[in-house]
């Protein structure tokens, strides 16, 4: 996937690196690779989300390693040269620039091993539907709630998870969250 970096135009690559650094600085919950990939594809570049995610992981690993070792910009570039061969010149420029500007702040606010396997909740979207009919049953008349959770996983990737609930399930779901809120308040 590293060679796919060649495909990404400079401004998109800069945006990716910006998001990665901001995520490492805990300013944003994660990197929205799906959304960025969509825009890259719209501009005519053939790149899939899987490849972009891999590239994001590589860059993220690079930056966080550099932060842990308190690397200067020049040291980072040298390490880069050793780790990733034949990086396009514009990519190196972007990395140099982003690290110069914001690399230090990662070093300062270093999180001593955020070993969470827990994701961060970002957003909840919902849909209320009634399934009217299907091949198995002409008269279904089955109401359901579809929920889409936007989650930033521990590595910083933002993904959507969707699932369906029956009405009784939804009521229980809602009740549980109300209970959580009540407990949270008393703690």
């Amino acid at each position, binding site marked *: 996937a590293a060679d796919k970096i060649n495909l990404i135009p400079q401004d998109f690559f800069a945006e990716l690196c910006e998001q990665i650094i901001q995520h490492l600085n*805990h300013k944003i919950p994660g990197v929205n690779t799906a959304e960025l990939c969509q825009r890259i594809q719209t501009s005519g570049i053939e790149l899939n989300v899987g490849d972009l995610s891999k590239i994001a992981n590589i860059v993220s690993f690079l930056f966080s390693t550099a932060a842990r070792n308190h690397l200067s910009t020049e040291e980072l570039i040298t390490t880069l040269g050793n780790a990733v061969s034949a990086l396009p010149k514009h990519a190196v420029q972007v990395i140099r620039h982003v690290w110069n500007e914001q690399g230090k702040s990662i070093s300062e*606010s270093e*999180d*001593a091993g955020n070993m*969470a*396997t*827990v*994701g*961060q*909740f970002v*957003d*909840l*979207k*919902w849909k*209320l539907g*009634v*399934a009217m009919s*299907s091949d*198995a*049953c*002409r*008269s*279904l*008349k*089955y*109401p*359901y*709630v*579809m*929920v889409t*959770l936007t*989650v930033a996983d521990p590595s910083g990737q933002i993904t959507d*998870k*969707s*699932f*369906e*609930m029956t*009405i009784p*399930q*939804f009521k*229980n*779901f*809602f009740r*549980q*969250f*109300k209970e*959580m*809120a009540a*407990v*949270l*308040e008393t*703690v």
Partner: protein
Amino acid sequence: MAAPEQAPPPPEGSKPLSALLNGIAQAAYYGNADITEELLHGQLYPEAAPEEFRALRAKMSGLLQSIASADMDLNQLEAFLTAQTKKQGGITAEQAAALAKFWKHHRAKIHESLVSRSRRGSVLRSLSWRVDLKAQARHLEQLHTPVAIVEMELGKDGQGPELLCLELDEAKLSQVLRRLSEVEESMALLTQAS
């Protein structure tokens, strides 16, 4: 070799037809692949010739399918069965009674089975949660911030479970509650309209 599965024995005093309907439902709606035509024939109508039994089973299956597909209520059912008794090559009054009795008892369960068959995508299998106090934090003011840790098990037919584990602070939780209230409001409007 395991013993072949028994068809549900006909309850005392009832006709083999009730048991047949039960057997048909087991195979068609409750996912019990062991209840085969041969089994039902042998257990319930051993004296009947194979083609005769096959025809009976097909007719009952077809009727049950129509009833289940339309999720008939009692009125619809009565009208439907009455029509069936009147037509050429239809059913007897006794058979109509057996069907009516069967549907009354099994309607909800069969409908539920058809509903779950129509679900696409993941469903929520279970949800559990706990509230933690953040013991470590980057910024001092975050210490002793309570967070909810929620674990959800999602599942899709034929696939293994997917575990989703999320952390929500008070603000995020409020956001969730707001959204879920929106759903509830919509639901109320829907039931009002229907």
